[in-house]
């Protein structure tokens, strides 16, 4: 089926070329970082995780969302999703790949990455994160590829694929739970030390992922002869509606706990994010515009999604999906990860702004993800077109 990836339209080649150029530029930035060290980023002794880990955290969520189409179809026979399970799985693959790449570019000594495997440490959540991400990547590649190949040949998939598919459902939940556990078990970081963090992660994953899937389905319908199905997209929209509501609700629960109890540790990070902190006459509020944009986008998204008319209308649905994606990207990425480090363990503030090189390296990883996504989708769509013919 790989031959489907090397033959395509002008638009396909053009898109891949642009992405490869982006990757090339980003790779030069990464070489610079390898030479000079992570000092070229905006990270500091106080904010020791930044854009890279923020992206990692967000895209783990996008990856988990494949389960949102797999579960209804395989466990509950929801036939409408039959056409798009492959799109969900082939979205999970580049998303997980991006997660792993973001970890690698964030490491101070990436050549030593094998140490995590050579010296397994079961008490470390990061070890289990590696295990669960690698496993999920393998599962989705194998399941996606085999089912697609069998569909092309017009035969039923082999019997051993079914247990793998069933396994991928709790596994998807686990990759996100483990990633939340990375944060939720750390004493001292009060923005993260909350039981609801894993639930928040899952809720935002299950709205961010399917909203991206909606956008991708609409693009696929526009640019190819494969139609994922209007009703399937509508069901995804309903899923996004309720998970986005849950996501916002969970955030508000956190805000209540902090501000009703008035416990400083529970309030300070939120105060910094949404209102800024004043310290020794200096005002720190760098993330305020971002957080309120995220809030506004969430309101717009929910308004458009709750209203059946705007949800059914695919133009407004695009706006809603983009708004959900952007809102969760800000909230889970910059908001959660950077916010957790501010104020620091001495109750002072060191702000964080990514540098251009850092953004360049991030765009490299985005480019790699987009390239893998494009190639996999091309294969899937070409096979579907071939079968339909």
């Amino acid at each position, binding site marked *: 089926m790989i031959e489907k990836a090397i033959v395509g339209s002008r638009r396909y080649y053009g898109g891949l070329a642009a992405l490869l150029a982006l990757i090339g530029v980003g790779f030069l930035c990464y070489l610079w970082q390898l030479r*000079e*060290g*992570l*000092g070229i*980023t905006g*990270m*500091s*002794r*106080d904010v*020791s*995780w930044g854009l890279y880990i923020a992206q990692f955290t967000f895209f783990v969520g996008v990856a988990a969302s494949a389960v949102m189409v797999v579960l209804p179809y395989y466990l509950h026979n929801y036939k409408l999703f039959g056409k798009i399970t492959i799109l969900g799985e082939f979205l999970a693959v580049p998303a997980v790949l991006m997660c792993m790449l973001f*970890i690698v570019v*964030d*490491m*101070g*000594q*990436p050549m*030593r*990455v094998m*140490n*995590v495997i050579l*010296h397994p*440490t079961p*008490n*470390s*959540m*990061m*070890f289990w994160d*590696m295990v669960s991400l690698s496993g999920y990547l393998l599962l989705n590649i194998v399941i996606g590829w085999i089912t697609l190949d069998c569909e092309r040949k017009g035969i039923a998939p082999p019997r051993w694929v079914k247990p793998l598919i069933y396994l991928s459902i709790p596994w998807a939940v686990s990759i996100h739970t483990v990633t939340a556990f*990375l*944060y939720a*078990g*750390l*004493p*001292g*970081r009060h923005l993260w030390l909350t039981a609801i963090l894993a639930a928040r992660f899952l809720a935002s994953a299950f709205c961010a992922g399917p909203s991206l899937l909606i956008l991708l389905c609409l693009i696929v319908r526009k640019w190819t002869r494969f139609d994922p199905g209007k009703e399937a997209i509508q069901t995804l929209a309903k899923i996004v509606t309720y998970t986005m509501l849950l996501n916002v609700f969970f955030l508000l629960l956190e805000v209540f706990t902090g501000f009703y109890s008035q416990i*400083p*540790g529970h309030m300070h990070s939120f105060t910094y994010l949404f209102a800024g902190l004043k310290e020794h006459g200096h005002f720190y509020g760098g993330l305020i515009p971002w957080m309120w944009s995220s809030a506004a986008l969430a309101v717009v998204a929910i308004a458009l999604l709750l209203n059946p008319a705007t949800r059914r209308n695919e133009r407004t649905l695009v706006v809603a999906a983009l708004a959900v994606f952007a809102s969760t990207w800000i909230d889970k990425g910059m908001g959660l990860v950077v916010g*957790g*480090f501010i104020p*620091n*363990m*001495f*109750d*002072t503030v*060191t702000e964080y702004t990514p540098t251009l090189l850092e953004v360049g390296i991030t765009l490299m990883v985005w480019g790699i993800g987009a390239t893998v996504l494009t190639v996999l989708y091309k294969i899937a769509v070409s096979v579907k077109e071939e079968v339909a013919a």
Partner: protein
Amino acid sequence: MAVNRRDFLRISGLGTLLGLGSMATQELLPPGKALAQQYLPDGKALKAKRWAMVVDARKCLEKVEQDGCRDCVLACNRVHNIPALPDPKHEVKWIWQERYENTFAGQNHEYAEDALRGKPFLVLCNHCDKPPCVRVCPTQATFKRDDGIVMMDFHRCIGCRYCMAACPYGSRSFNFVDPRKHLDSAATDPKFPTRMKGVVEKCNFCAERLAEGLMPACVEVCKEKALIFGDLEDPGSEVRKVLRSRYSIRRKPELGTHPEIFYVV
């Protein structure tokens, strides 16, 4: 011999795996016979069941008020080749001074006595009994020794900085840049390695000095003897004597990390 493509790929794949696997297995075989396997701890080494330190803040503050004393900080920086970095974001510090309100963030109030308000307190790695940094390290590059010291293995650190997120005390520093660029090569102490960019570091209770029978550099250099270092499990040690007779506090006790740096205020 007509081999079809699928079988050919299978055979060559298995053959490659076998070849690579046997190469890798060779690495796992024990080293040659003439390399003896006997290792001993240094006879001069100072031993303890649980190393701890008491900071006598009163003595320390008196001296600091007189002449801005930073002898312990300078000694540690010298002995461990700690770079002087111009950008505060990339600071590397193992022991340093923080204001009273920041050292005990969350534990103090606005009406603190004048003798303490705004004054510089020494902060360093607490070598916790239940260290969250050790719990989260994915490669065991930071680990707890039997004598209580939380050690760093710079060889193994992958620079993921998870330990920095986990430490509730902000004790850890990361080498964002090559430290050698900010070290005076004439002043570099050859006995202790510098570190490379991309690894995390922190106070190690001078484990390398303890191994030679010496006290930690900060303890040794303090003229006021404000830093008391000893075995917490030895009821006759100086640390136990001080803790028995004076009121002491620790940073963030509610977190259950059991820090082993006590402050006598």
